[in-house]
């Protein structure tokens, strides 16, 4: 494992996921969420639980980075974006179950699914672009005299 690149990829993924989450779920979907106000904490209560939101994003970014590092050790934005998309499908499934048991609107369900697909695919691509496993071994070859030099 290349820990320096792993750490850089994790920080970048966390930064993106947190920023995207704020823009998509808190800003863009705010109107849809307000259609069912009973489901959400009050702003003051949310402030008291803000650390859970930050820690949750750290955990998500960290384990997505770990997953990419194990799944695609060679790195690469494309393969890791594909992995991110598949991971997003797992969470899309969980969102569908939540829709069946909580009084969410279909607009919220669709917003969450699309948001997860975009968020995890791009986060995967960022991780893949930044992370590459360290080579298993480095061999040094003594260079011989070049002909004609």
């Amino acid at each position: 494992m290349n820990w320096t690149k792993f750490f850089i990829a994790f920080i970048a993924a966390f930064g993106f996921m947190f920023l995207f989450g704020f823009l998509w779920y808190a800003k863009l979907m705010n109107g849809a969420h307000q259609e069912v106000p009973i489901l959400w904490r009050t702003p003051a209560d949310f402030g008291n639980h803000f650390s859970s939101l930050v820690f949750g994003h750290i955990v998500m970014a960290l384990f997505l980075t770990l997953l990419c590092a194990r799944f695609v050790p060679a790195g690469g934005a494309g393969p890791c974006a594909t992995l991110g998309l598949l991971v997003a499908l797992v969470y899309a499934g969980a969102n569908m179950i939540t829709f069946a048991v909580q009084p969410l609107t279909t607009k919220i369900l669709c917003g969450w699914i699309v948001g997860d697909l975009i968020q995890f695919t791009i986060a995967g691509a960022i991780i893949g672009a930044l992370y590459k496993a360290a080579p298993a071994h480095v061999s040094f070859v003594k260079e011989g005299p070049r002909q004609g030099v």
Partner: protein
Amino acid sequence: MKRFILAFIAAYIFIFLWGWLLNGVLLKDIYVQTPNLWRSQDEMMSLFHWIIIGQALIVFAFVMIYASGFAAGGVIAGIRLGVLLEIAAIGMRMGFYAVQPIPGNLLFYGSLSGVIEMIIVGAIVGGIYKPAAARTS
């Protein structure tokens, strides 16, 4: 492909039964503490197909990830994948906990049961699905 379908069906049956046992029986008393957050029983039954589709999507994506990157490792790799996915899901659950007035013990028991569930799903998928090369050699 045959093993993919077998792994999918076996893991799906387990997830369905586990979901029913956990949410329908074991955690029932905790859900009752926050009735405003949940649909009525009748409403849930009318939307039951979303649970079936959602669980199928979770299992399908799990088997796809396993088959395309972890399959050579067998049961252990399946369990490892399950743990990684579930811990990331705990992160997402914590995000929901920050915005929804869900009881803390529901977050805890849901996460604990999620880890157990995904370990078993990983073991099932890892035990059944084998890549073509591994089966022919």
